[in-house]
């Protein structure tokens, strides 16, 4: 199976807004393509209109959608480490899975970027080496996710690429680094 794994993440900065990064890897964990957004800051009107679902809208519908559409290579599966990106599932045919990273504080300690939160309802995938969840409303996402992951090398670390994405975001947006 020709695996192309997309690692999509968004980080929030208290001052600059949201930053999205999308890294596509091959089955050997080598980078194929990378895209990141310029800072996205929701307007006051959006904050009022979307209320508690604002993060889902900004991360899933705006940032994630833009990044996936921008990529020239189509991912077999998209893995994210923030729940709001699961909202992307409504706009893409590829399975989107949320990985609950063991080390939540893996982001650089020197960063002021934090993971945005969400109230989306998720469904855990049991029996896997990693703690993965898919959108509860997507009935066939679980099956497709399991199918794709079964082709992954045993030693493929699906948590590690997020560290690369966050470091790339810090590299691309130095202002987000803590003083």
């Amino acid at each position, binding site marked *: 199976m020709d695996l192309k794994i997309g690692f999509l993440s968004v980080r929030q900065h208290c001052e600059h807004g949201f930053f999205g990064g999308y890294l596509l890897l091959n089955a*050997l964990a080598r*980078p194929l*393509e990378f895209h990141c*957004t*310029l800072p996205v800051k929701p*307007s006051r009107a959006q904050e009022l209109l979307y209320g508690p679902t604002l993060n889902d809208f900004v991360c899933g519908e705006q940032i994630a959608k833009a990044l996936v559409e921008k990529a020239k290579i189509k991912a077999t599966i998209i893995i994210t480490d923030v729940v709001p990106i699961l909202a992307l599932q409504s706009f893409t045919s590829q399975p989107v899975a949320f990985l609950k990273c063991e080390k939540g504080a893996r982001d650089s300690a020197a960063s002021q970027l934090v993971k945005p939160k969400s109230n989306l309802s998720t469904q855990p995938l049991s029996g896997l080496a990693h703690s993965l969840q898919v959108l509860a409303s997507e009935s066939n996402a679980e099956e497709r996710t399991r199918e794709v992951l079964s082709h992954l090398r045993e*030693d493929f670390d699906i948590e590690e690429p997020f560290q690369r994405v966050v470091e790339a975001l810090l590299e691309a947006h130095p202002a987000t680094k803590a003083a």
Partner: protein
Amino acid sequence: MFHRSDAQNDSFSPKESRNVSRDSSAAARQHILPQTEVPVKVEEWPLDQENVELFATGWQGQLERNLEVEFKDANSIAALDISCLQIRFQSKAPKTVGMLFPEGFEFAPQADAVDDGAGRNDKTKKQLPVQDDGDAQKRKRRQTRIRPPDDLVKLEDRLYFVLQPPLETLVASANLEFPFAPFPYQYEGIAFLFPREMAILADEMGLGKTMQAISTIRMLLLAQQLRNVLLVCPKPLVTNWVREFGLWAPEIPVTVVEGDAAKRKFLWERKDAPVRIANYELLMRDQSILDDPELHFDLVVLDEAQRIKNRNSTTAQIVRSLPRSRSWALTGTPIENTVDDLVNIFEFLSPGYLRSEMNLKAIGKATRDHILRRTKDKVLTEMPPKMFRDEQLELTPSQFDSYRSAEDEGIVQLEDMGEMLTIQHVFELVLRLKQICNFDPATGASCKMEQLEADMEEIAASGKKAIVFSQWVETLESIARPLQRFGPMQYHGRIPSKQRDGVIQQFKEDPSKHVILMSYGAGSVGLNLQFCEYVFLFDRWWNPAVEDQAVNRAHRIGAKGAVTVTRMMAADTIEQRIHDVLEEKRALFNQLFAETGGVPKSAGLSQDEIFGLFNLKTPKPAKSSKDKAA
């Protein structure tokens, strides 16, 4: 209207007020003025009921007004003009920046590679065989990332390195086999060299600079980042480098440039040699070939780069003229004497990058991203300790007599020379006295030899091995005779190069060989003698860095146990005085790399210090010279 701030318009005119419903209350006689920022003068009107027209507020008047209700036909409601305010939300996609990775980073296909379907080469799920030494699991979990160097400016170039997988992942996925799992600090060394065009790997001797350089070259060759590498090393180390390449990069063909002029020319010009190894001396002979404008190296690596510390030496000039894209220097002693040593190595890496007149802080700041230096005590916490034992020995009576007369006569001679006195004369006396401290030329007596024999008895009895260093071959041969029962081997300039590997091999494998006698020049660099637990410095070298290199032949990775270093010196002699100077130089080196500041500009052995060994004053003409003696 009530919120207008125009004072004129804020007061009702009498004419206007006629139509306003009246109110008889006193309060209503006044204008009820709108809130204005400008003070308004209120006019009083006469209280004549007939003529007075009351000014009332709008709402008061409205209370008495008949409500007029307008009825409309129900059918006409649809025609009402209801205007909606449209609020547009930002719906356009966020702006993005991105990059596609060039395929060049992919490792070249291996024999058992399979296509991953993307036109790139994939591997099966084979696991990297790791020789388990107890820490292998811990090391497997480690992730060493390649960081972009500070001088890389373009974001795309920086992201290229930031987004690469950890080295451990690259190694595992490419099935790169190592004879044993590298130490974490060795991975860090590879990650340091990998992205850099100018770098000094200045690890302390014994930490595996060779392995780190070879592994990085291997990965860069496989990633097709390099095609043409030249490695320059001292002649005695060529065979060592060939052997290490065979160990750490067996699939990389290595070409040793040697032979007659025609053969060397062929070897320099052949296109299918990804790695060439040449010695420093040979570069001088082949300068005309190296001047060929078509010759270009993707990478030139200098081993024992302190060889070019003298900027004006022919070797340094030739090395600097080599056409190349990347420049690396390997040395355990980037500063042997003065900061100028480092400046001159940087002349090879990037001419003009450092200047001698820069202060220490500025040099430290400028070089921080280009030098990687680790010491054993920091990275190899599990490595056995290195223990120093300074043996101050009393000269034998005959030695003492010879020494005293030689020194007294020598000093008198030096003093008599007056302005003709040069530093060479002082050196000659120092060397003569040091030789007497080793062996009495008249009787052959030696306090050091007596002690060495006693120590060797104990070492041989416990089945251990020792290295004895001296700067003179004659001294080594003198040592060999009384040590015959310990099977002494000799490794120095008089042993032909082709026999040297055999000497080391025999010393390592033959249990009857308990001691090897080495000269500092031949044996202090590049050799792996970690099976020895004892090192004797029979006499002292001028430079502590050279002594450290000698000691680290034994105290290096794989050392079986604690390494005991015995520094022999004759008490109350020139050796002791030199020892004091050496300790000062050692302190300088430690100071500079600790970046503590306040280090003297030059800690080299100045002419004043050399003359001072004999309480001599530096002759006036020589005093102005800034040449360093050692």
